[in-house]
């Protein structure tokens, strides 16, 4: 993969964000393997943190790509990222402990081919197209894997397809329906991620674009998605672990939300702290 160094005015260069995002995501995904090492599900929340670091990287990639004016709107970039990512991620889960690395390589191959198709066959002629679509496919795959870890505590195919149903409080039997893939949670994770990745640049673009504000919004969107995913994880992992994930998501969301509001006020020309509609006397 060729790395194009691109300094954006007054911000961290894209290469740095990409490398940091990639390392953080992979490390977080592997930290969730502590689940297997310790025999608990307490470390599932690392999946959520992997989601957030991948999303921060991905939203900045979307910024780099969409600065060229691709004409199809920012959401389309998020959709192709997850459309290609979900395919790579599902195959990668078959490879056991190597799953995050396989997802990375496989998504990069799919993204590379899609980038070549858009740039050469479809004649887009955008310099960053191939690199951006490669990065976006990797981000899509790793984000979905992060959601899978957050909800089920595992990133292996068996872990994602097999759940267990407890009958009459004691009898436990395996169920394929009560699982990440069989229960259709993949589709929810897909859209939670796709919205979180495309929204920040869509909301912050324009002449007043500031890198830190957009990335803070990405983190905020990521934690918001993590709250929803953590609530869904109650069905698949132990209650204690799910509560831990939910608490981390809630704390992260409140913090990033407050920070985002602060940055928005910093960048705004002027702002008025509008109060809710006052109660009118005499009702």
């Amino acid at each position, binding site marked *: 993969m060729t790395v194009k160094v691109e300094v954006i005015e007054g911000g961290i260069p894209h290469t740095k964000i990409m490398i940091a995002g990639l390392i953080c995501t992979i490390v977080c995904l592997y930290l969730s393997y502590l689940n297997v090492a310790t025999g608990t599900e307490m470390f599932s929340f690392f999946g959520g943190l992997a989601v957030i670091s991948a999303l921060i990287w991905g939203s900045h990639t979307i910024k780099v790509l969409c600065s060229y004016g691709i*004409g*199809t*709107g920012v*959401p389309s970039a998020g959709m192709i990222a997850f459309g290609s990512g*979900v395919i790579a991620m599902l195959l990668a889960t078959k490879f056991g402990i190597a799953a995050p690395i396989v997802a990375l390589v496989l998504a990069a191959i799919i993204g590379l*081919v899609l980038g070549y198709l858009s740039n050469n066959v479809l004649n887009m002629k955008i310099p960053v197209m191939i690199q951006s679509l490669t990065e976006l496919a990797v981000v899509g795959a790793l984000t979905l894997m992060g959601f899978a870890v957050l909800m089920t505590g595992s990133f292996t195919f068996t872990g994602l*397809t097999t759940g267990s149903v407890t009958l009459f409080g004691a009898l436990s039997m395996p169920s*394929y329906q009560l699982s990440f893939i069989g229960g259709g949670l993949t589709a929810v994770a897909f859209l939670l991620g796709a919205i979180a990745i495309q929204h920040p640049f869509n909301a912050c673009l324009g002449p007043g674009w500031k890198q830190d504000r957009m990335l803070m919004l990405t983190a905020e969107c990521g934690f918001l998605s993590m709250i929803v995913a953590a609530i869904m994880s109650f069905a698949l992992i132990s209650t204690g672990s799910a509560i831990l994930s939910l608490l981390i998501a809630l704390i992260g969301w409140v913090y990033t939300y407050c920070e985002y509001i602060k940055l928005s006020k910093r960048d705004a020309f002027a702002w008025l702290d509008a109060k809710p509609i006052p109660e009118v006397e005499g009702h």
Partner: protein
Amino acid sequence: MTAVAAKPAAGSAMNPTAMVIGVVMLIILLGIAYVVSPGLGLMALIGVVIGGVLIGFGVHFVPVGGAPAAMGQAPGIATGVAMLAAGAGLAGLFGGAWAADQGFVIAVITGGVGGGMMMAITCMMVNFVYVFGMGIPAASGKVAKDPITGDTQPEFKSQGTEGHGLPFVSFVGGVTGGILGGAGGTLIYLELLSLYQATLPTVLNASATQVLPIAVATAGIFAIGMFLVNAVLTAYNITGTIEGPHDPKFKRWPRAIVASAVASALCGLVAILIVTI
């Protein structure tokens, strides 16, 4: 013409070298599928490629207006390709998936009808909003006469716009695109579903009834993923907006066919590998 000598901006020009490389890649991918799984896998992959090509071709018919259409300054439905194609395609996919038990042909037709109905309702309500809400008539900016009804267009077109509203030909194009997209999405789903139903019991070592949720969910999410990949690639082909089948940009469809075929073959191969390795 080589890639270097081609025009710098995205245009309507074809790139023969890249097209040939695309076709070669398609053949290689089909070859890999033949090596990995000669019978079931190859047939499924061919179905997936046909479905992907149907989606890619179908999106060209849909009148996508984008942001200018939302301001009444360009004809078409006022949103992007990704949203429109996802709406029409997923409506078709759900319709087709519901009819999956009724047989292959009925399911594909149901998927097409689902997608076409979704687009027909969308186009009609869009025109309602344009005509009765914004007070603008439907007029195309690309042709002087509607190719189907023969109605003249320029005298209804406001100055400084590229046309507005949805002329009859765009409406027909939208419904055609919805039918093709819905049928293509359903075809991908059905091919993958039948492959997974046949192979997953041995992979997971469970009965056919037990793996049904996995087969349905995996085929469904793969179909959605491939649908979005194909729709967005086509969106890149038409650079965001198109008026319908009468738009000059429609002539770019051969590029999208090659791109969709290669992309679907690659994604389909990965989807097949999940049960063969």
